[in-house]
């Protein structure tokens, strides 16, 4: 890196603003979202368990039951989390923490339809033993299968909030 003859030097942080984010950053954001979603679903399930326990002796014994209902609710929670986040701001919580954003080529967040398409792409990428995610490593534009399916890009977007500058201004004053 320093001899100047081989690979070019790594760009400094601010230069990366607006360029496509790489595999590791996106993986960290994805894992953070998985942790958040798992916590939400686990907590919701646990509350339902507690309430079920409370009313166990109330004499209600309904014949209809299905674990598929819980599975369907889980899918809706996961789908809603991603679709709403992407279509409103382009960011999930994980992406916001890691400072990346899902955008269309014009720089705007994807529409709801595109977000659904991207969610479908997530499923495809996952079902192919996560090959669609690892594709980011070899794709010339750092795009996964889900990005190709939905026509989206994931870019570094750190400057939007400028927290550091706000902080320094307050400390100086």
């Amino acid at each position, binding site marked *: 890196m320093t001899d100047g003859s081989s690979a070019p030097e790594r760009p400094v942080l601010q230069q*990366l603003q607006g360029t496509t984010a790489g595999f590791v950053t996106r993986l960290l954001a994805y894992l953070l979202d998985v942790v958040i979603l798992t916590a939400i679903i686990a907590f919701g399930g646990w509350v339902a368990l507690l309430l079920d326990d409370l009313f166990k002796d109330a004499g209600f014994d309904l014949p209809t039951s299905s674990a598929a209902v819980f599975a369907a609710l889980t899918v809706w929670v996961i789908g809603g989390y991603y679709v709403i986040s992407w279509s409103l701001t382009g960011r999930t919580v994980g992406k916001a923490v890691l400072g990346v954003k899902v955008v269309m080529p014009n720089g705007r967040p994807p529409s709801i339809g595109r977000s659904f398409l991207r969610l479908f792409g997530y499923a495809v990428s996952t079902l192919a033993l996560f090959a669609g995610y690892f594709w980011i490593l070899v794709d010339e534009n750092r795009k996964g299968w889900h990005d190709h399916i939905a026509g989206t890009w994931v870019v570094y977007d750190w400057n939007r909030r400028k927290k550091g500058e706000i902080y320094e201004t307050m400390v100086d004053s």
Partner: protein
Amino acid sequence: MSSENPTVSDSEQTEPKWDPYRAVVRLIAGGVSLGAEGLRAADAAAGAEEGSAADAVGFSATLESATALIVGVAVETPDRIVSLFDTADRVMAPVRTAARPVVGALRQSFVGRVVGELGTNTAAEAARLAAVGRAEINQGRRLAITAYNEAVDGFIEQLSGRQSLDDLVSDQTLGVGKGAVEEVRETGAAADWLSESMFRRVLRRPPRSMPPKPSPAT
């Protein structure tokens, strides 16, 4: 408790299995039914003891339904309130562990300490109020409402009066962006660059100086 219930089959007794659908239905049906019938009788009995009957209270069916839930939690199964916080703490433990490398051990331990302290205090308060409700079972309903209000008020007061929480909010707003999060982002970007460089070498592609920007052409 469940062995006395004639509607529960033997297999369910020996192998209790949680069913989320039934849990939700029981919540709705149980709240309405208990509110409309069981607690009306309990309230009438308590009111008769005080000589003022139910008109002194005058709850609607909806409020009674809500009260049934409160009574159920605060009076009939108080131990579950305490176990709620214990279980929540256990559930969150791996989450905290997983998040620690990301947000930094120092900040995480601070967050964990504040949340843990709030949880412990609230659990202790809930247990104390539930014990009062159990001792005064005839007036359990009114005590439960008081307990609920006190617990909520106390929790809100505790939240609003904590300097450490103020610091935490300030920290989240300003400091985290400057410190741990920025560090994670920088590390992530560096790792992006390294991993991509490595794969480009393996695929015999020429190195590039900057990642691409979004383009309509692709």
